């Protein structure tokens, strides 16, 4: 049970997918126009992550190594489809706000990355908790970014007006509406990356370096840790073909 708590801590704090690993940047930028959207996206991703980690961990001895990528993709895509219909059915307003980004959870690096690096090598229970940890970490990250953007762009948190607006000649807050539009997402993320850069340097100086950013911000796609993000359906097969060519 201790290991399970450790997985949660690992996902939320130590290897937080948004702040530390910088994974899944597409949804991070696209849906964080408000805190509630960020929370909704984070929870949808958590559900997919937990379910797919569970199933992949159960099937880890059955799935042949050579076809593991297509198998993982099918598992993840199935759960994404289920989540998509549940959100569409029960939370139609969230579905309208998130739109195309719900089916795009399939190509979120976090999910296939966890399947490849954790769930396919570990027993079911720790994998489930790993999914919860990573999912809550992602939800936490998205909600924080959403709150920052919502305060700056509308003076609200979760739709509640916390900064009185300047109207009718009263002194108040003038919303910087660019922050709830597309360009603001880039500025907020840039600031976050810069802050994390400083934190990273301080941590390294103290002798406790943070794990390297493994998403697209860590370097380029080619250096992406998991082969999924760089799009190899069958890594092993490819390598084998090359060997054969050399032999012949």
């Amino acid at each position, binding site marked *: 049970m201790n290991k399970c708590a450790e997985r949660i801590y690992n996902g939320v704090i130590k290897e937080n997918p948004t702040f530390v690993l910088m994974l899944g940047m597409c949804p991070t930028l696209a849906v964080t126009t408000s805190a509630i959207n960020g929370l909704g996206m984070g929870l949808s991703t958590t559900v997919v992550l937990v379910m797919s980690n569970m199933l992949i961990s159960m099937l880890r001895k059955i799935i042949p190594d050579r076809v593991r*990528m297509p198998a993982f993709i099918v598992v993840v*895509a199935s759960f994404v489809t289920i989540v998509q219909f549940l959100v569409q059915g029960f939370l139609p307003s969230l579905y309208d706000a998130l739109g195309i980004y719900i089916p795009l959870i399939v190509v979120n690096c976090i999910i296939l990355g966890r399947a490849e690096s954790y769930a396919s090598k570990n027993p079911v229970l720790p994998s489930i908790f790993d999914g919860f940890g990573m999912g809550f970490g992602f939800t936490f990250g998205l909600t924080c970014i959403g709150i920052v953007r919502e305060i700056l762009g509308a003076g609200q948190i979760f739709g509640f007006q916390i900064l009185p607006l300047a109207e009718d000649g009263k002194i108040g807050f003038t919303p910087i509406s660019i922050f709830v539009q597309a360009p603001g997402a880039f500025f907020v993320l840039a600031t976050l990356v810069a802050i994390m*850069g400083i934190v990273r340097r301080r941590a390294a100086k103290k002798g406790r370096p943070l794990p390297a950013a493994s998403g697209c911000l860590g370097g380029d796609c080619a250096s992406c840790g998991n082969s999924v993000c760089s*799009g190899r359906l069958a890594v092993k097969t490819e390598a084998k073909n090359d060997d054969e060519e050399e032999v012949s």
Partner: protein
Amino acid sequence: MQELLVIAVGSAIVNNVVLSQFLGLCPFLGVSKKVQTAAGMGTAVIFVITLSSLVTGLIYKYILVPLSFDYLQTIVFILVIAALVQFVEMVLKKMMPPLYNALGVYLPLITTNCAVLGVALKNVQNDYGILSGVVNGFATAVGFTIAIVIMAGIREKIQYNNVPAAFRGSAIVLVTAGLMAIAFYGFSGVI
């Protein structure tokens, strides 16, 4: 014809795939260090997205809808795209080595690029036919190429600037992307 033009301008410039929809952000940040590589990546993306919009459009219209399996679109599309990219890579390697040498390195980076799946899903969502879907895919990819080439041009100049230590690396690139997004935001009155 006019309708197709509206779709093309809309997806290439007004709703730029990277700067206003945040799809394909990974290659946009990762492969934009030099103009030449950025142009190569852009060409590969144009090739793959146009082809994949055609294939996914055909599959959706002639296989999924008649069998009323359209709820399986996400699963089918992602597998088709992944298989397609690897197939294209193999075909290019055997049949057109010069083209493969030019684009080959970028192809594997594209498969799970969200832009490819995003375009396929958008085509379905907006009820585009095969032709409008292909035009939309091509235009989206052209928009991606425009954005990544401009970004690479700016990044080549940034090297000579004195950037604050904390913002060196990807942070300044993101600030640049934000400024580009503001510029592209100005196009929103066009359509």
